[in-house]
């Protein structure tokens, strides 16, 4: 039978979910599909690279020459080379204690940006991913802070606010010691006019560039917070028509934070918060903000994303339970047969079963196009190592770091001057007041003598 070319559904109405055991190639294939949407004008926001932090591999074209040769033998002459050099914007969150002096950059194709967050942009739902559910009291404290402090307050001012007489009691609150203090000390939270504050509206305009959140220098405990912050922002911007409606957020290994069963873990509450947010986005943010995620077992994300997919991709699932979870509803709807479900149990790695929202039946892709960029491999290792070997090109960020620290010092100096000026004025007005009192007494005495 003559093979037909498969194209993912366009436009994308819902989300893309890929299931498959470890080593089934689910991430590879998901990225290949996401790359199709990139070519059709979708802005890609790669927010989570999984345990191996694979997001930054968008910078490096695929080196799977044999794979592409085999693919070409099957599909015929390629119109253009398979491996591709994408334009990428790498975003490094500003964590002062862990950022090195230089970060990977290869202009003009690969741009690196340090980014900070305007602290007043943060809402309780962002904070909750870090400290657990935000109480009413904590919300009040946060609102009070926002009211008391100026828009361009520095991180040090935020910390100082908790040292003021009336606010000292709040220092024992997790809002302070788990959120404000560490993020201010790291200089991630900044005032409104800080040049490094991330601007999603401007970034969204660059559809020809892939946004990658690089977590190589982000302490693990803050990663979910950053994902939540960016995802929430995009959700709000799309819903408020501030950015266009063709955005895809990419999450590898969604089970790491979406796993429903993992209630015993230490960061269970934070994961729960992030899970709720992502689920809300999946349910309500469909028109304009799409998710692309992969996970090993459908059971791990059960109920959270079910029914929201526009494109369901099933790779090899040896476990009967996983196959049942992924396929039972489809089987009842007559979209897949028992024989096909059994086939999924030991499917070759180059194949994948796909079902679009409006497809009557599941399709078996005999050959999925390889991703055009590199992925993690055991023999090549993490992104930083691969980058060093291949490009060894960096951007010196010491000036940017120093500028931020310098700005804080200047503001501190300015505030001190203002305080001193204010004290002087106060002192002067007291003196003036005292002089007036003396003058009246004299007048009175004179008046009395006169009489």
């Amino acid at each position, binding site marked *: 039978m003559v093979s037909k070319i498969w194209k993912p559904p366009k436009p994308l109405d819902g989300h893309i979910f890929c299931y498959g055991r470890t080593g089934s190639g689910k991430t590879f294939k998901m990225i*290949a599909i996401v790359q199709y949407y990139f070519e059709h004008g979708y802005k890609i926001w790669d927010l989570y690279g999984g345990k191996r932090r694979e997001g930054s591999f968008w910078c490096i074209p695929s080196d799977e020459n044999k794979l592409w040769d085999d693919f070409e033998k099957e599909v015929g002459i390629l119109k253009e080379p398979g491996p591709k050099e994408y334009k990428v914007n790498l975003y490094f969150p500003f964590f002062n204690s862990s950022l090195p002096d230089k970060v990977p950059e290869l202009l003009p194709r690969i741009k690196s940006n340090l980014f900070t967050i305007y602290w007043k942009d943060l809402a309780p739902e962002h904070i909750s991913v870090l400290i657990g559910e935000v109480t009413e009291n904590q919300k009040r404290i946060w609102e009070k802070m926002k009211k008391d402090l100026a828009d361009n307050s520095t991180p040090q001012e935020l910390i100082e606010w908790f040292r003021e007489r009336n606010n000292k009691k709040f220092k024992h609150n997790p809002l302070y010691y788990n959120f404000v203090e560490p993020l201010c000390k790291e200089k991630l939270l900044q005032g409104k006019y800080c040049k490094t504050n991330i601007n999603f509206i401007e970034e969204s305009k660059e559809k020809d560039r892939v946004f990658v959140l690089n977590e190589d220098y982000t302490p693990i405990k803050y990663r979910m917070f950053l994902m939540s912050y960016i995802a929430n922002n995009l959700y709000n911007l799309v819903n408020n028509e501030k950015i266009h409606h063709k955005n895809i957020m990419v999450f590898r290994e969604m089970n790491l934070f979406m796993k429903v069963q993992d209630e015993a873990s230490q960061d269970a509450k934070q994961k729960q918060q992030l899970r709720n947010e992502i689920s809300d986005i999946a349910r309500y943010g469909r028109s304009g903000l799409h998710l692309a995620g992969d996970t090993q077992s459908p059971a791990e994300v059960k109920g959270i994303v079910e029914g929201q997919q526009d494109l369901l991709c099933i790779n090899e699932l040896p476990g009967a339970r996983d196959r049942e979870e992924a396929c039972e509803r489809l089987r009842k709807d007559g979209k897949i047969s028992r024989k096909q479900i059994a086939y999924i149990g030991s499917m070759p790695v180059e194949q*994948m079963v796909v079902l679009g929202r409006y497809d009557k039946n599941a399709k078996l892709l005999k050959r999925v196009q390889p991703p055009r960029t590199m992925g993690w491999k055991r023999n090549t290792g993490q992104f930083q190592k691969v980058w060093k070997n291949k490009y060894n090109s960096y951007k010196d960020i010491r000036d940017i770091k120093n500028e931020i620290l310098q700005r804080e010092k200047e503001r501190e100096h300015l505030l001190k001057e203002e305080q001193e000026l204010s004290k002087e004025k106060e002192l002067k007005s007291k003196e003036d007041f005292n002089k007036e009192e003396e003058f009246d007494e004299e007048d009175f005495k004179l008046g009395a003598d006169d009489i």
Partner: protein
Amino acid sequence: MMELNLTEEEENAISEEARDRKFRIRTDKYIYAIDSVEEVKTFIDAYKFLDILADNLRRKEKTEAVAAKIRNYLQQFDNIYKILIDLYCEYDDGLETGKYYYKEKMRECLAKEKEKIKTLINDVYPIGRKISKYDPSDSSGLY
């Protein structure tokens, strides 16, 4: 022996016609014919493919010239085609006891006209299938 030298335009026109009319050549047997019977069948399929294709191309003004070219090219294979198709039909329709005989005959013919048979098969192979220009930017695989 005359060769079928087609320009890229002519190849595209042929492929387009073949696609529209759903003409197919089984490419796996082209390259990997496991025995003489299969090879003969492949030769017969290739001849028929070109024959029908030329007929269809003849009816369109812009491809008339290509049709004439193919027709002209095919003429050199007419005799072998007649012999082999007869043998193949006898082999296919006949009793089991006779199959060996006809298989031998086909093998002899193949040995004698090896060059011509291979030429036709090799010439048809690239045009019988779609000249694929798979676009990795606009596709994600095959099903």
